[in-house]
């Protein structure tokens, strides 16, 4: 076993805390601004159809290339080897299956959200 490395994990760090609050404030600000523009159910659920496929793709990619992927899966593969790889490949495999079987039939029905489906 490798020797324990000195780490500052778990100790409060002012810069990190300030970054955290700044990030949350900016996110809340954007949410508040967007909420003022949302009027109809269609706008609420699917941005009134105004979000292009490319924009939505980027948003979904941002959702999933997050701490869960970079930290969680990296750690999983590091500790469990190939078994961890199953998880990182698996969620991405589920995406097309959901698209084919669930999202596409709903495409014509009207009220749905992309990320929910």
């Amino acid at each position, binding site marked *: 076993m490798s020797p324990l490395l000195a780490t500052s994990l778990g100790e409060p760090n002012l810069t990190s805390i300030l970054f955290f609050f700044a990030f949350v404030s900016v996110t809340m600000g954007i949410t508040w601004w967007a909420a003022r523009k949302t009027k109809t159910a269609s706008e609420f659920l699917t941005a009134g159809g105004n979000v292009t496929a490319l924009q939505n793709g980027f948003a979904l990619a941002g959702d999933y290339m997050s701490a869960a992927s970079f930290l969680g899966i990296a750690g999983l593969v590091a500790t469990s080897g*190939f078994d961890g790889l199953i998880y990182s490949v698996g969620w991405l495999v589920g995406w097309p*299956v959901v698209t*084919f079987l669930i999202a596409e039939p709903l495409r014509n029905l009207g009220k749905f959200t992309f990320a929910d489906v």
Partner: protein
Amino acid sequence: MTPELSVPAVAATTPSNESTNAVRAVAAMRWRMAIVLSLLMLVTYFAFVLGIAFDKPSLGTLITQGLSVGIVLGAGVILTAFGLTAFYAWWANRVYDPALDQVARGGK
């Protein structure tokens, strides 16, 4: 209490058997494609999982330093997912949406 519609009104608004069958045929075509692509995806993925479960040593053989066969195969499964989705998008644009438009316009 629902008011009763007259027979001519019901007949005028009920879709004909022919158009219903046409819609059903297009829907069935889409379901066939969706199921085939889903099965392809799942077979690829579970082949990968079974390979990991039963044959780790050969998956561990190194191609170059730091790169093993298993990682390449994992990337291959991900690329397969991309490819199947891209194929479905192409097929939907080329075949499915036109068929749907044609049925909506009242054709066969």
